[in-house]
């Protein structure tokens, strides 16, 4: 903010770096984070432009080329770079289209759990007498169940589909947000600037969303990144158990599930989808580490 004033000063070295530049300096110091970001950009690009990038249609079956190995191994075909699956669909194209599903599920789940999570977290920090403990007890109950099991139970009730996968994962990750927002809002509430705002006559709404919330953003962004990666992992697990996105959609977990029967003769149908999940999740976690280093210096040592 103050940069505009100081830009008239002759020596540019005296200027504050712009927030963006400062952020990038912190972020790029972490080499793993940069590598993760590169890979993630690649995945996002592939997802956005899937029809242009993918060599084939993901559900098109090439019956003459069933279980063709990847192009570099014996019996491989140059047309199918990563080989084909049991009914002759191109692996690479399915993985590319699968990235759309995974990113979509992850992103929607993060958004649908983050917004109520912020609201409930702020409410429980601002009303510590009755509402706060009530909200936290409900969250405790949700945390007593292993998250994957709760997600499975929800999908079992609602029925397997992409929308229900998103709902289940969003519900499961809600307590994490509530606890995080509550904890950081409660530290902020003791600060002088909040008291000052209160004395100046700011109402509860303004205090919550304008005064306190922006100062809780750093840990929140880091947590959102991490829960994005675990959402992708959970979605794949649900798909693998046959309770997520249904075939013939090219979902990574569902691809692995149908690959189980070919484990003895077609290593690529087992290896490729899992490797894609691992690398994507790893990339997002690396980016999350970098974000933490850049945004939240306090947390650096806790890592």
């Amino acid at each position, binding site marked *: 903010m103050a940069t505009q004033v100081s830009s008239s000063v002759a020596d540019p070295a005296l200027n504050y770096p712009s927030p963006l530049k400062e952020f990038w300096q912190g972020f790029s110091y972490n080499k793993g984070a940069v590598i993760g970001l590169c890979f993630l950009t690649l995945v996002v690009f592939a997802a956005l432009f899937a029809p242009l990038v993918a060599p084939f249609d993901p559900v098109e079956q090439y019956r003459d080329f069933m279980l063709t190995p990847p192009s570099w191994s014996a019996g491989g075909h140059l047309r199918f770079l990563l080989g084909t699956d049991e009914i002759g669909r191109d692996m690479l194209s399915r993985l590319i289209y699968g990235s759309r599903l995974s990113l979509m599920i992850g992103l929607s789940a993060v958004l649908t759990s983050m917004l109520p999570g912020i609201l409930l977290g702020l409410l429980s920090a601002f009303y510590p007498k009755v509402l706060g403990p009530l909200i936290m007890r409900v969250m405790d109950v949700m945390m007593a169940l*292993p998250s994957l099991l709760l997600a*499975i*139970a929800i999908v079992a*009730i609602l029925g397997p589909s992409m929308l229900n996968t998103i709902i289940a994962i969003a519900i499961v990750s809600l307590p994490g947000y509530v606890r995080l927002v509550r904890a950081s809002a409660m530290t902020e509430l003791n600060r002088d600037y909040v008291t000052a705002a209160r004395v100046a006559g700011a109402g509860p709404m303004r205090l919550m969303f304008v005064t306190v919330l922006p100062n809780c953003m750093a840990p929140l962004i880091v947590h959102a990144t991490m829960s994005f990666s675990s959402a992708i*992992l959970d979605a*794949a697990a649900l798909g693998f*158990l046959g309770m997520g996105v249904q075939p013939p959609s090219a979902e990574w977990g569902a691809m692995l599930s149908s690959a189980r029967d070919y484990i003895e003769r077609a290593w690529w149908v087992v290896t490729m989808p899992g490797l894609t*999940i*691992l690398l994507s999740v790893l990339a997002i976690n690396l980016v999350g580490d970098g974000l933490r280093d850049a945004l939240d210096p306090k947390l650096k040592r*806790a890592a």
Partner: protein
Amino acid sequence: MISFILRRLWLLLPSVLGITLLTFSLIRMIPGDPIEVMVGERTLDPVMHAAALHRLGLDKPLYLQYVDYLRNLAHGDLGQSLITHDNVWTEFKTLFPATLELALAAMMLAVVVGLLAGVIAAIKRGSLFDHGVMGLSLAGFSMPIFWLGLLLIMLFSVKLGWTPVSGRIDLMFDIPPRTGFMVIDAWLAESADPVAYAGAVKDAVMHLILPAIALGTIPMAVIARMTRSSMLEVLREDYVRTARAKGLSPKRVIFVHALRNALIPVLTVIGLQVGTLMGGAVLTETIFSWPGIGKWLIDAIQRRDYPVVQNGILLVAFLVILVNFLVDVLYGIANPRIRHAK
């Protein structure tokens, strides 16, 4: 100490009640009522339908149904499976040792390897080994364990032929269940009759090893990371320097003076991993056809066996709450400051 335990128990009450409310309402969120679910696609005579609803108490107001549900639970009645008509509690009891055996094996692996790797990485900070451990643990943390399980099967069972693919023991052994732990039961059987059960223990261990690796990977990664950072913190402390200065051997300083204090946060993490372990057991047991609680629940969900789903989930949740409670109590015993806090 007793008042501390009682206070903790009192705090559990809302969670336990909340869980029952959750499992009670889960089953009522299914579209259609339980009778329709039981009958399936067949059409149902409305009179019989009403009679069945009445017989099961499903025509009462919801809050009375909930009270009934609680009363049944308090009497130890967890209902019957729609498929096998066995008592849910009986089924749980027979299958639970399998999950416990798997979870204990996984946890042992995770603790031993994770602690050791974490300690060495902390001592050799910045070395190639340190970077290797940190990289591997990050990968382990991001690992889809169902895929890891498949990879392990592909490498060790299919390609190398070292381990069997599924189950707990070879079908040619008929091991009498005594403890429910296959490795121990096999050992008992083999020592009683070394000829008929020759190689039973080895076979049981071989069956156990791959699922334990698959299930133990994530806790192992978490423990290694936590141990490393906690050790680094402790190694900077004055008492470590004092111990070094008075001429104790490096081994003694690290394993007695430093590690002991570094273990406290690690223990908490180990306690927290129990939930993850139960979630992971669902996936691991499905892949390796391990006849435990996880596979039981998944099968029940696929067969729409709702009493099993409902109360199976309830039992697992109780289990997680119980373990967390025990960790809390242990923590209170280890650390008086927690015991005497408000």
